[in-house]
């Protein structure tokens, strides 16, 4: 599904954010990428969603080499990869329904389709009763679930979660991880970037460790070892 082949990202004058990364993520896998701050985790994600371009190597997503992706093709890639962030990135002046609908509106879906699709995804993240609430009226865990719903609304094959539990307490973090596992079980490949020890140990899934832009460990069933 996702292949990083000898991927390097260099920032002049002398910084390698990612250096010679080789990583193969299969369809339907759940992979945690861990590492300390500045280890290159976020750069790897930015390269994967076309936010940055590689300095060297190739990134292949579903058979598509996106290493030198053209500007006009980035939106096509983004509809295939759902992304969630630590700060949720919800629009405060829109309610929950509108926040999710917005992702469909800007991609040209009809109002009729939106009215059918949004409740379906709200049901998946267990927020059907809160469609008319605004982000400020929800807990951090609920806001992150809205973020997940929005990321999944295009039914992407890949879900990238960049520190999704960073702002949450343990109980809410567990809820989010359980939700990500449920999504993974339904067939979506999940890439979790975190430095939350509890979360990684709870998952008992593949763990890739990054250090100074390089992969230093890749275990099928890993634990948080930094």
């Amino acid at each position, binding site marked *: 599904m996702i292949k990083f082949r000898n991927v390097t990202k260099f920032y002049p004058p002398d910084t390698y954010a990612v250096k010679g990364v080789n990583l193969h993520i299969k369809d339907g896998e759940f992979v945690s990428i861990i590492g300390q701050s500045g280890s290159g985790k976020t750069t790897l994600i930015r390269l994967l969603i076309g936010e940055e371009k590689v300095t060297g190597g190739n990134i292949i997503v579903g058979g598509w080499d996106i290493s030198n992706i053209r500007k*006009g093709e*980035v939106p096509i890639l*983004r*509809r295939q990869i759902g*992304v969630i962030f630590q700060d949720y*990135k919800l629009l405060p002046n829109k309610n929950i329904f509108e926040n999710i609908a*917005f992702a469909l509106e*800007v991609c*040209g879906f009809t109002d009729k389709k939106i009215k059918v699709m949004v409740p379906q995804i709200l049901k998946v993240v267990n927020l059907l009763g809160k469609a008319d609430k605004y982000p400020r009226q929800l807990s951090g865990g609920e806001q992150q679930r809205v973020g997940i719903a929005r990321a999944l609304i295009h039914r992407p094959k890949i879900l990238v979660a960049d520190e999704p539990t960073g702002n949450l307490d343990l109980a809410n973090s567990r809820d989010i991880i359980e939700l990500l596992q449920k999504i993974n079980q339904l067939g979506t490949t999940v890439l979790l970037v975190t430095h939350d020890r509890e979360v990684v140990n709870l998952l008992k899934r593949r763990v890739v460790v990054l250090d100074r832009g390089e992969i230093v460990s890749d275990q099928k069933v890993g634990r948080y070892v930094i």
Partner: protein
Amino acid sequence: MNYSFFRALRYAFKDFGRNFWLSLVTITVLILALLSVNILICLNALSARIVSVVKEKVDISIFIKPDVEQAKIANLEERLKKRPEVKEVVFVSKEAALADFKEKHKDDPKILEALKEIDKNPLADSLIVKAKSIDDYNNILSFVNLEENQQIIKYQNYTDHEKIISRVNEISKKAEEVSLAVTLVFSIIAVLIIFNAIRVSVYTRREEVAVMRLVGASSSFIRLPFILESIIYGVFAVLISFGILYLCFSLINPYLDAMLANYSFNLIQYYNQNIVLLLCAEAGAVIVLSVLSSAVALGRYLRV
């Protein structure tokens, strides 16, 4: 027209309202620019009308010697009519001229008294010649001055309106220059203010834009609301400026009518006759200006 366009239009209107005061200032400057353009148009139309009326008044009056046979006068009239530069020739008999003179001076007893004293018609038969173009009069005068014609002509009178025409042209040219300079200044201010308005819009919508990019909105869809917003500024400005113009015209028209009674010029009529052309041209120019200005602002501040 599809869903995306109407959505972008909705976002544009939303943004227009969100930065209402900035939108208002932008539209106001555009209106000022448009009003100065319209003053320029009015001046042009007015001076063109005055010049054409003055030109219309230019003619050559040929006064015939007394006791010349009617056949000779008719012959001269025929030969004048045959000339390609002549538009029309009117024969005015001395009787008709006298009647006209009396009618003109009916309220002036002294002149009427003087006429009675003379006791005979002092006026002459005449031919009034109008040329097709103001430039043709010299040719006609040369023809009139030919020896064979001068034998029956007492004198001719060419009212030279060229000085008036050139004066009208001069004044209108000066007024146009001032108006053009004012238009240019307002246009530059308008471009800058639209640029700034779009920059502020990009800033206020930065979160939305970030989410749009994240969920895979195309670059053109992200840009479209900003472009439409600048077009909305233009359309509002054109409509409001025409509203203001018609209001001003209806207020000043009675005075203008009195001033230009001899020129039969009516601004409202002029605008009504040319409304489609004027609206399209002005809206087109404002929209092009707005779109260019916002496109530069987007290129600079919207990284998509």
